[in-house]
């Protein structure tokens, strides 16, 4: 698989809330503040999945969001990675047996990077992005 040259310079992420309590969103916003400033490495949030390399999903997948999650995932150009941020998206968290849950994110779309925490700290989120970037570089080399 050959990546476009733009991967050599930047990694654009699209954030998708599939039912999060907003705790992970607050930490994602904290991660892109000047304190950490990941944009100096070309890492930034974008407003459209069609511009994204990585999909950052927060929260467990509620029934209303399942179709939308799949639709948005399909709208991201290949190659793409999915990063699951927060315990809820990984396992359902405290909502694991809720009646309106479709399940963890990886039961709906394939997940490449997991960032546990409730919510995870910005450092952990940035570490997850770096892990995603490393996987993309492996994809570029065709060894993933």
């Amino acid at each position: 698989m050959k990546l476009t040259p733009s991967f050599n310079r930047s990694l654009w992420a699209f954030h998708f809330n599939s039912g999060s309590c907003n705790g992970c969103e607050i930490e994602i916003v904290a991660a892109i503040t000047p304190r950490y400033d990941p944009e100096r490495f070309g890492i930034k949030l974008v407003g459209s999945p069609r511009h994204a390399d990585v999909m950052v999903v927060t929260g467990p997948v509620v029934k209303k969001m399942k179709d939308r999650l799949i639709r948005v995932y399909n709208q991201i150009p290949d190659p793409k990675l999915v990063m699951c941020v927060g315990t809820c998206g990984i396992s359902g968290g405290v909502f694991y047996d809720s009646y309106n849950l479709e399940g963890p994110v990886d039961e709906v779309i394939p997940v490449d990077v997991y960032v546990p925490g409730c919510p995870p700290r910005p450092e952990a989120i940035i570490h997850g992005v770096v892990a995603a970037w490393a996987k993309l570089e492996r994809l570029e080399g065709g060894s993933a």
Partner: protein
Amino acid sequence: MDLPVSLSTGTGYWNPLAWLLATVIAAVIVYLIWQRGESGYKKGTAQTAPFISGNPEPGKEMVHVRASNLYWGYLDALKGYYERIVPAHTGVVNDYVLWYLGVTALLMVVVVVFI
């Protein structure tokens, strides 16, 4: 004939070659920007579908703005006029001929009686 002449107007000048050069430069810049865009979208898949916050794309008939919509304010402002005029346009020739005869008769009365 000296084609590439400059036309000086006092406030500027017109030279077809300068415009041609500017157009070519602009086209090259546009092409370079376009070339650097994402070209990996798979046509016919969701990757080329419009992003509407994850919602399904509505049918064209649901989002198409008809030309008459542009005149909504105009039609609404003249509603009293159109409510009378539109029903009179039945599409039946006999009706139009009757209107023609009626209006002509009315004009004749006006002309004969008052003028």
